[in-house]
């Protein structure tokens, strides 16, 4: 186990380093930079721009800039935002909670609904429900998340006026109920894709387990069918799903970015878009690194949880 962990962590460090190189190269090799913002100031001269570039360290060779950034990042100094000079980690931290709230709540919804759809599809294989679920999952994977959000707003906010069309809370209200009402729409919109994926894998996983000897044994020794289904089949079918959950993280993050835009949700996605518009390299790099870390931690947790929950799996 510890050998596995060590090996994995080493692998992840290499990956993160690669991620940082790719991210840095993408940002810095592209034309147009943070200086463009300062040319908009009236009376800005070329000499002054030079001074700014020098003070920001932008006039040094790229490898030097990268090394400077990398060296500081390794000791936890992720630089300061070009926009408001706040430390990058602080800026990310300030926008993290709304995104996490959105991702967590939609994951819970997606796992519950997806499991239900998958289980029902498996035990009633080739039924009308199963076909509709199959087709529905494919269509759900084809709908652009932001457009689904717009449709949601149109139906539930414009037509029915049941839900607010965006934002984290109503200014001046901010009660728990108000928060919850604002969360419903973005949470469901973000959950759609995950429900589709989760239900497909859950169905496949159920069909594998249903043919196992221990299910037959349970049935043969007279365990009631419902107990066989809940305790023997579904429980075991959920095990491999842990891995799927870990692998869904990048998709969930991408979806969160788009969903946040539609629902004017003040999370990391919005921060990322704003920072890109401003050419705020330190924040953009910070978010890229942070999300890559989140993705890798998700992978690692999935592997470990899978091993812990299933004694047949030995990690080494």
């Amino acid at each position, binding site marked *: 186990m510890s050998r596995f962990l060590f090996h994995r962590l080493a692998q992840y460090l290499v990956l993160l380093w690669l991620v940082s190189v*790719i991210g840095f190269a993408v940002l810095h090799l592209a034309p*147009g930079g943070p200086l463009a913002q300062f040319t908009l100031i009236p009376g800005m001269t070329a000499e002054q721009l030079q001074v700014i570039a020098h003070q920001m360290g932008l006039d040094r060779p790229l490898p030097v800039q990268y090394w400077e950034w990398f060296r500081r990042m390794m000791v936890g100094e992720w630089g300061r935002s070009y926009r408001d000079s706040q430390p990058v980690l602080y800026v990310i931290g300030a926008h993290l909670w709304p995104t996490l709230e959105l991702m967590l709540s939609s994951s819970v919804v997606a796992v519950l609904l997806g499991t239900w759809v998958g289980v029902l599809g498996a*035990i009633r294989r080739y039924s009308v429900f199963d076909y509709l679920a199959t087709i529905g999952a*494919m269509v759900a994977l084809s*709908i*652009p998340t932001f457009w689904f959000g717009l449709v949601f707003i149109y139906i539930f906010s414009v037509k029915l006026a049941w839900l607010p069309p965006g934002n984290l809370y109503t200014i001046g209200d901010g009660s728990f109920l108000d928060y919850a009402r604002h969360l419903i729409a973005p949470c469901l919109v973000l959950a759609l894709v995950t429900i589709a994926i989760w239900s497909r894998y859950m169905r496949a996983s159920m069909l594998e387990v249903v043919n196992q000897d221990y299910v037959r044994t349970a049935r043969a020794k007279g365990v009631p069918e419902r107990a066989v289904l809940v305790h023997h089949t579904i429980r075991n079918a959920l095990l491999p799903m842990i891995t799927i959950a870990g692998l869904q993280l990048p998709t969930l993050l*991408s979806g969160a970015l*788009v969903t946040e835009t539609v629902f004017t949700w003040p999370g990391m996605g919005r921060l990322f878009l704003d920072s890109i518009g401003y050419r705020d390299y330190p924040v953009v790099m910070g978010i890229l690194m942070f999300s890559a870390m989140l993705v890798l931690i998700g992978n690692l947790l999935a592997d470990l949880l899978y091993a812990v929950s299933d004694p047949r799996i030995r990690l080494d």
Partner: protein
Amino acid sequence: MTEATDIAATVARPSRARSRALARFVRHRLALFGLAAIVVLVLLCAAGPYLWPYNDLRINMRQRFAEPLLAGLHVFGTDELGRDMLARLMMAGRVSLTVGFAAMAISTLVGILVGTLAGYFGGMIGTALMRFVDAVLCFPSIFLLLALAAFVQPTLLSITLVIAATAWMEVARVVEAQIRSLRERDFALASEALGASDAHIMFRELLPNAIAPIVVASTLNVARAILLEAYVSYLGYGIQPPVPSWGNMLNNAQEYLVTAPWLALLPGLLITLAVTGFNFVGDGLRDALDPRLDIS
């Protein structure tokens, strides 16, 4: 019949022949539906603008926000500048579908190249290439797409390249796995013993045997590319007006959601239709070409 006895019946008689056939038929029908949707959309967008009386760029401020079906020939209504929506949707479709196909072609080529080289040579080269693939996959795709798109001059070509740059990794993985296993097969070893060059073995012997999963992956990649174009254009970093695309038509549609909802509903509907079409066809091809890949 309860749920539980139903499950028993399914297990006890796995070969419900009629149901299986039905399943295949429905699957097949979905693929056909997908193909029909794609053909109709392509024909509509390619030929439609020649036949339709309205030009997609003609502004008519006296007929702004005409509702669909209520304003004479403007069957899909008009937008905030009085431009005909159907004409715009068709021209936008040309752009979106072209970007989708072109990005698919480029990303598939890159994926094949990387995957083949990595799978064939293995060792250091293979590890390095596949680690690079892993690293790119660590970025949530929209984040990478936006980071790239925001920093290039947005043109049709550059946006296509950017989308391709975020969509080649899956193909590379599929091809690498295929080539790595095919490489040890007798026919490959025989070819090597006969003195064939590396390039000959890679591209003439091995690659043709890996074509099925590539076809499936690239079909699904068209769907993905159309979706990515929509995302990046909706967020304002993709195809720039006045060139319309299904994505950028949605860009400011949210403002008019209350007064002119069709501006937001119609382009998204077409995106969904096109993407669903390619996904259905890809799924059907997967069933037809390689049943082992089926997860459901």
